[in-house]
């Protein structure tokens, strides 16, 4: 059951000219969020902007005693609300509703887990990496960004025992190009008998490419889609994604309830919105 918290900003850490991490005092949500779940957020008051915006839970924050104190969001400035989140001062209030949505289904120790992130698509993987470590699953993060300056929190992932494979658009770190390049190489090299789970989050074309690669190599992949969402609770039917379940006709399903995490195979990629 989601709750709505008028959360105070604990800190706002700028990572680059576009990215920041906002820590929110919403332990009620953080304590129950599963990897891949999201929150619906509204900073500021007034009716413009009107609607909340969906954000992945990035980190679950704990104090020294291990008590959960809140959660953080990895924010990329692209429009009105993300701009406000970028500029928030500590102490400001942010309405935060969650946790929402269907989480990732974490691999089990007999499998290895590869997470594939593009840009701000890194957000859901901090929580997933922590969960995988707790389950004793060996995990690797394939992580692509525009440049080395926009590869964030690498130490945190290393600290969670995650292997890192990097790529940048400008070649300033890791592979020069899309993150699917090293992913394709790695899939080709992997022993077909090895059990593998893939998780992807990032721009739609990237998730689609990861899905294609996964299918070509007979691997399962879960993608975390990012459609426009009006409510996050199943009320508005704005967030639909065309999904073709085995043996069924394609149908529009609400990604706030049936997603945001989907089995990549079932997504009818041509039918997605522009969001």
């Amino acid at each position, binding site marked *: 059951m989601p709750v*709505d918290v008028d959360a105070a900003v604990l800190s706002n850490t700028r990572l680059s000219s576009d990215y920041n991490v906002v820590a929110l005092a919403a332990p009620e949500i953080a304590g129950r969020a599963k990897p891949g779940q999201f929150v619906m957020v509204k900073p500021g008051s007034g009716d413009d902007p*009107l609607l909340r915006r969906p954000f992945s839970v990035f980190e679950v924050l704990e104090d020294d005693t291990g008590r959960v104190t809140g959660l953080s969001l990895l924010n990329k400035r692209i429009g009105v609300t993300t701009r406000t989140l970028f500029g928030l001062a500590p102490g400001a209030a942010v*309405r935060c509703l969650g946790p929402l949505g269907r989480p990732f289904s974490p691999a089990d120790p007999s499998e290895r887990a590869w997470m594939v992130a593009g840009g701000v698509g890194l957000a859901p993987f901090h929580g997933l990496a922590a969960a995988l470590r707790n389950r004793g699953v060996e995990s690797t993060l394939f992580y692509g960004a525009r440049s080395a300056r926009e590869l964030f929190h690498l130490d945190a992932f290393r600290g969670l025992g995650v292997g890192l494979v990097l790529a940048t658009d400008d070649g300033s770190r890791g592979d020069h190009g899309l993150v699917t390049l090293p992913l394709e190489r790695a899939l080709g090299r992997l022993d077909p008998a090895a059990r593998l789970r893939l998780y992807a989050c990032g721009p739609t074309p990237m998730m689609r490419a990861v899905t294609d690669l996964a299918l070509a190599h007979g691997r399962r992949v879960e993608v975390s889609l990012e459609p426009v969402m009006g*409510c996050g609770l199943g*009320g*508005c*039917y*704005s967030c639909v994604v065309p999904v073709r379940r085995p043996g069924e006709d394609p149908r*529009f399903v609400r990604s706030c309830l049936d997603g945001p995490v989907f089995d990549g195979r079932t997504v009818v990629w041509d039918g997605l919105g522009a969001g």
Partner: protein
Amino acid sequence: MSNVDLSVSIGSLTLANPFIAASGCFGYGVEYAGIVDLATLGAVAVKGLFLDEREGHPPERIVETPSGMLNAIGLQGIGVRRFVAEKLPPLREGGAVVIVNICGSTIREYAEVARILDDAEGVAAIELNISCPNIKKGGMLFGSSLRGTHDVVAAVRRVTRRPLIPKLTPNVADVASFAAAARDAGADAVSLVNTFLAMAIDVETRRPRLSNVVGGLSGPAIRPIAVRMVHECRQAVSLPLIGMGGIMTAEDALEFLIAGATAVQVGTANFVDPFIWEKLTAGLTGYLRRHGLTGVSEIVGSLDLSPPRNARNPPPTPCA
């Protein structure tokens, strides 16, 4: 603290309070059962239902605009039969007062959907959606002609004894005449307003932002127009009115009640704050207490239209 009575009556239908979840903004109600006690709402108007299942429009289905949003969902839905089988039982279980919002491409379809609901248990009222701007056939086409309004309402009236509430479109010049047409055809009340036909353009791609090109504007942006329309209907007809359009707070709801609505619906605001319902009832209760009133009925239509103090003996005489 004195007790105040929030209940309101719309014809034979009595609601515990005047706050109704607006159709299309509360799913089939069941989605919210884990968040709010459905029995604490005045009623739940469920998402518009046709006879058969519909897929609705492809994304993008909504776009935010200043203090509002456009939607062109296209009435994706499970059809009335699956609704009766799958959704009504849990709604009844949850104690919800259920208003079923129905659509049709033809008068025959409206009547058929209504007949099925007339037989079903747990349907408190039927709201006739003759005002959806997002579909090619039916919907607003009926609602924007007086004749169409009359004919649909009369046809449905013949097949159901349930309280019948046509929902009016604001995309007309004189909404009160539509309220009168609905009344003459046997409606028990009318609800208003549905959304305003509107559009947003992505200037970079020079394409409409909605896949359906046009959509319906809802939210606080439209509230002043909606209040005016309720006021006009109240002046012109004596039918019970259910007002809506951009209600975000108890004060907003009070504008509609004072203008003459017996109850209100809340749509877009539920997206922003799904816990709004207890705030609305608390706000209304506080208002009534503060003003020494004991019931909602005392404020319905209580708008004071006497000239303002500074216009009574206007020092500079207006010329017209």
